[in-house]
């Protein structure tokens, strides 16, 4: 039997395959246990975690849009303590490659979070400086090169774990933000987070989301995500993780061809809970069909 090597190394984080599940779209993994072996995934990026528990935004929090959806969850999460006590032991005993998505309101909060998360069973940290659904911090960090540099370099001083910086697409020049994160010591970059959007009910003349605006995800945003991943992969030396509208193995392959060393499956998990597993199989099948033995042959193979 011909086998293919799907392993990738993301800034020190060794993955058995390049398929991760995106933060906020796969819970803590546990919710999807009945659909497949969590341990067969490249890894699980858990819901954005904050120092204190957060209740999140008022409803309505999600709405379907053309080939996508808006969400304004607002980082609802039980806080880092609860995560460490309740979820981490389960994930560790299941052997899941666990990446924690961190959200904070200030550099100090991010640093404290990072320190609290230096725990066995946590494979890497993903720095969420791009959440459009919270007032303070969140996206603001991700849209300024100066702030990106500051938060990344500070967090690096408080963490030995591989640090993935998750970028916001709501910027004029994502390549420059990416370079700022790289210069400040990021081990890898993940992109894109959601595009800021809005939905309105013309009958009631009110916004549909309780928070008025929310983050757009799903196949609708794939062309934007693909373009940004391609731009960023050319602009930096560190590995890039592609995110945005990945529903099928074909979508995932496009990101890898554009330079992504790994990908994250987001809204697809809601539509097809076995999507991530199907994508792993589809990537392996594609490599075989194309006579490749190693996923690394495909990364950045786009011919212009």
């Amino acid at each position, binding site marked *: 039997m011909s086998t293919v090597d799907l392993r990738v190394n993301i800034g020190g984080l060794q993955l058995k395959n390049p398929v991760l599940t995106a933060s906020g779209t796969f819970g803590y993994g546990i*919710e999807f246990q009945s*659909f497949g072996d969590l341990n067969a995934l490249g890894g699980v990026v858990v819901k954005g975690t904050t120092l204190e528990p957060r209740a999140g935004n008022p*409803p309505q*929090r999600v709405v379907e*849009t053309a080939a996508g959806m808006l969400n304004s969850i607002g980082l609802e999460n039980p806080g880092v303590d609860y995560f460490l006590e309740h979820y981490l032991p389960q994930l560790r005993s299941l052997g899941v490659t666990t990446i924690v998505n961190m959200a904070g309101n200030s550099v100090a909060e991010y640093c404290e979070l990072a320190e609290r998360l230096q725990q066995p069973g946590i494979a890497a940290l993903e720095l969420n400086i791009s959440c459009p659904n919270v007032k303070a911090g969140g996206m603001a960090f991700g849209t300024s090169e100066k702030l990106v540099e500051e938060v990344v370099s500070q967090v690096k001083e408080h963490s030995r774990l591989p640090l993935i910086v998750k970028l916001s697409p709501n910027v004029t020049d994502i390549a420059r933000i990416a370079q700022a994160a790289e210069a400040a010591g990021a081990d890898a970059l993940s992109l894109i987070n959601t595009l800021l959007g809005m939905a309105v009910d013309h009958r009631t003349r009110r916004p549909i989301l309780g928070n008025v605006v929310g983050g757009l995800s799903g*196949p609708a945003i794939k062309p934007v995500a693909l373009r940004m991943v391609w731009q960023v992969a050319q602009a930096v030396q560190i590995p890039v993780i592609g995110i945005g509208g990945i529903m099928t193995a074909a979508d995932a392959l496009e990101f890898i061809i554009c330079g992504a060393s790994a990908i994250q499956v987001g809204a697809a*998990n809601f*539509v097809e809970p076995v999507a991530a597993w199907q994508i792993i199989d589809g990537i392996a099948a594609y490599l075989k069909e194309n006579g490749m033995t190693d996923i690394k042959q495909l990364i950045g193979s786009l011919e212009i």
Partner: protein
Amino acid sequence: MISSYDAAILENQQLAPSIWRLQLDVAALAQQVRPGQFVQVRVTNTYDPFLRTPLSVHDCDAKAGTIALLYQTVGTSTHALSRLRPGASVNILGPLGNGFTLPPARSNGNFALLVAGGIGIAPLLFLARELVAKKVSTRLLYGARTAADLTGIDAFEQLGVAVACCTDDGSQGLKGNVVDLLAGYLQSGAAGDVYACGPTPMLRALQQLVRSKGLAAQFSLEAYMACGLGACLGCVVAVPGGGYAHVCTDGPVFKEREVEL
């Protein structure tokens, strides 16, 4: 255990101008689902509609291995669903949610009052079937806009459930809403455990009524859902004292005291 099923469509029948009943062949699910639980239906394999559609299990025949869904055509997904024909199949995830808490079998003096507003009738037939199986004396109070929208009363009557109706326009039963209908019924001194499903304004009024009468009540709620699996945190309802519960996993059935409507 929550699983993904490709369920063959046995029947997809129009019962009222905007109400359809879908019968699915899905034995493994039929054998474990409980009243008040729901499924997430993937109506097409395209990206329009994109998300799945949450629908309550309307009826279930574990022996035959079938479930029925009762749905109102309101938008893209439900209209697309109404165009599917026997022979086709739909992918569904389930069983989802907690379901109604049923009283212990044959417990003395247990009266069940089922209260439905509009398509809120959907989860109550399966519930009625199980209540009757437990020998609970069951009554349905059912309100809709017009007589044409009152669907499937026969099925309740065949179970031996007493049915009282009302319509907004008075075209059948009392003219008025189902909370008034219940209030009238309770005036005679009757009591019972309330099991209700319907629009939020109706449930809000019902909450007032059952509190004033000191009745226990369970409400089956709706919320806009992405996953139905507890993963997206989209489907929240406010709870007393602040914060939110998740309709897909903490519900969709809540004790009336557990939620702020």
